């Protein structure tokens, strides 16, 4: 049992730095996923947003994990636009609101779950609607299970990343019921949801920052 590890501010900054790097790397893939069942802007949107997040974190260096999340959430809301801006922004803003210092894995997990609940409420989306929820909700569940099982941070985050990746893959056969892809009706089947794919990147980034 090593859930006594705490996550400091640098970890949270590193999380967004790594997420920004992965999204930049996969920008075109995300945009192509969005082209198939949406409007071909998801990679550009998120890349723009995370670039601004990193800039804002560099300009006013945060003192606490809460400040990292609050800053990132606000920046995403203020700079991304589209559906994913307010949705991702709300995840991190709400997570920041719920987070307590010092940040244990249990605390992280609980706050993350609140972020996901805020997302579901705002987007009125449930698991299986073929949205970013399909990656984030399983990730949150994996974190909770890891806490229950007393798994270490690194492994917990890796399990969350795996769950998110699997959740993103699992959107492929689904018919979209929310967001732009829902306009396609049955034609949305057979494509990975771009928001779920980017959510998987967020969780993959998380897995790299656990010490």
């Amino acid at each position, binding site marked *: 049992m090593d859930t006594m590890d705490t996550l400091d501010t640098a970890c949270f900054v590193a999380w967004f730095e790594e997420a920004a790097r992965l999204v930049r790397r996969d920008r075109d893939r995300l945009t192509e996923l969005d082209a198939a069942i949406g409007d071909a802007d998801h990679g550009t949107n998120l890349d723009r947003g995370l670039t601004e997040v990193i800039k804002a974190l560099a300009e006013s260096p945060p003192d606490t994990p809460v400040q990292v999340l609050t800053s990132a959430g606000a920046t995403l809301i*203020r700079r991304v*636009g589209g559906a994913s801006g307010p949705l991702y922004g709300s995840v991190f803003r709400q997570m920041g609101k719920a987070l307590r210092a010092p940040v244990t894995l249990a605390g992280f997990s609980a706050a993350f779950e609140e972020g996901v609940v805020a997302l579901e409420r705002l987007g009125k989306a449930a698991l299986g609607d073929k949205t970013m929820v399909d990656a984030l909700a399983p990730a949150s569940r994996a974190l909770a299970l890891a806490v229950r099982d007393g798994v270490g941070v690194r492994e917990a985050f890796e399990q969350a990343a795996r769950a998110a990746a699997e959740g993103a893959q699992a959107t492929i056969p689904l018919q979209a019921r929310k967001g732009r892809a829902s306009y396609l009706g049955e034609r949305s089947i057979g494509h990975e949801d771009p928001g779920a794919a980017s959510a998987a990147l967020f969780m993959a980034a998380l897995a790299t920052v656990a010490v």
Partner: protein
Amino acid sequence: MKKLINTADSVVEDALNGMAAAHPSLRIRDQVVYRAEGPRPGKVGLVSGGGSGHEPLHAGFVGYGMLDAACPGEIFTSPVPDQIIDATKAVDGGAGVLHIVKNYTGDVLNFEMAAELVEDVEVASVLVDDDVAVQDSLYTAGRRGTGATLFVEKIAGALAEEGAPLGEVARVAGEVDERSRSFGIALTSCTTPHAGKPTFDLPETDVELGIGIHGEPGRRRAPMVSARELAGIAMEAIHGDMPLHGDLLVMVNGMGGTPLMELYVVFAEVAAFVKGKGARVSRSLVGNYVTSLDMQGFSVTICLLDDALTRLWDAPVETPGLRWGR
């Protein structure tokens, strides 16, 4: 892909600079387009916005008798709350502000967030959802807002100009949406500057039926047929959802890359269809109004007019994209 741009990142800003240079009637600040003369005390302010790439919608409809401000987002990306908050505060003349929002998750969320955050301004909101290609269901995002947005902006704008109160302007705006239906067909995909290649592939032999305005694929692919048959498909879809009768406002709208000549060919067929149903083309618009970058194709939008709506449609309007009566 060849585009008349400097860089993909600067295209929205560069285009807004062009608008400002071309239209002294507009003033542009922090990516919001305003009437240069500012708010008129006692007049309800009208704010709309959405992703860029649909020009002249929305920025081209800022001016007398129509919008007070437009918030252009990045290409195909709804604006952010900051823009909407700025616009809402700036255009309030003390009588409140109406948000005209196309029904897309992103637009709805960003306008909602903005409305919550604006203090001291009474805000009402109307959702435009006219696209019959999309199934309307409690379990989906609902119908898209497309061509009817122009109708709502024009008619609500005329009413606001007359000094009607916010509730009344919002009510009539909603009424216009309820009485309007659209259907769109693409011959080609558009290409966003960032993606640099067509959003979808469409062979020479096929068209996309039931497209929206974000360059997204449609509901169904079908073989390319004559203008008469394509117009028939669009009109049957509209008529099936809202039986045509009485006096109609009819827009045949180009998606951006289609020549006006072809839009007139389509209009002739639409008019013949309307006549065949015993209804009447009372007012019309033919041209590029609610576009999707360089997409080739068209949409038809129809509104069931009554005398009050006709009068408001005919009222003077003076914007870069729509102008008559002054």
